[in-house]
């Protein structure tokens, strides 16, 4: 059973459109090996959130969203390039792109509105430049910190994005 997760660990979610690997990379909380210990579940499941917000967060975490990368997995030759970004930037529309670096005007407005979620994790973030592009394949820590922060308003940001 653990072999499923060991295999998913070896897949790079940036290069392979694999839901399990993506979930494992960004969100998975590992099972505690000691059987006597209680199992850890994500924080949002402990909160008394409205049903639609909980559904929204679950969909984002479990890759059951409507981003292009998800649609491309279902249709042969599916197109996963973001159609919201202006210009000729060919960015894959996945959750990290949508949350942090999509250049759509409305998404940028949202990031400015929720700037208190971004500022502690992304140094270059400002109202004039509401795009978090300092992510590299070697340093995903800011993104992990952003996604795992204990601020309940993060869920409002997810909801506003209309995932």
């Amino acid at each position, binding site marked *: *059973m*653990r*072999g*499923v*997760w060991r295999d998913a660990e070896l897949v790079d979610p940036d290069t392979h459109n694999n*839901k*399990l690997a993506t*979930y494992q990379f960004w*969100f*998975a*909380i590992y*099972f505690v090996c000691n059987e006597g210990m209680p*199992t*850890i*579940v*994500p924080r949002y*499941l402990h909160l008394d959130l409205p*049903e*639609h917000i*909980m*559904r929204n967060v*679950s*969909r984002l*975490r*479990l*890759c*059951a969203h409507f981003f292009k990368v998800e649609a491309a997995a279902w249709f042969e030759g599916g197109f996963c390039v973001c159609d919201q970004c202006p210009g000729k930037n060919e960015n894959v529309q996945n959750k990290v792109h949508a949350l942090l670096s999509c250049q759509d005007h409305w998404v940028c407005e949202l990031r400015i509105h929720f700037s208190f979620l971004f500022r502690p994790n992304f140094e270059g973030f400002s109202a004039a430049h509401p795009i978090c592009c300092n992510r590299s394949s070697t340093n995903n820590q800011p993104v992990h910190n952003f996604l795992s922060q204990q601020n309940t308003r993060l869920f409002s940001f997810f909801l506003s994005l209309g995932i």
Partner: protein
Amino acid sequence: MGIVFFLQAAREFSSLLSTLHLHFLKDTLGVTQSTTDWAVLQECGHEPLQFYWFRSAVKLFNSMHNTNSITLRRFVQADLNLQPLSNTCWTALLLSAFQGLLGCESYV
């Protein structure tokens, strides 16, 4: 054959009960039924039902093996002796469930 069939590797989600379990979890989370089963289980902090069945089957086997009842011990011994000759005896089915486990050679 019964429940031991569902203990084998890659049959984690073959049983109706597992399907119902996952439907319930997905409904509770509000995600579509096409969402990855393993991710849903991990999200809810659950193991596949197969894990609990497997553990119960091994516990039952161990307790039968260590029982005070001479009759039951003889029955287990007879089943163990039958295992090389028949694929349908209980011990053979249980051993087949070990296939696919990491380092299964050390358990079988």
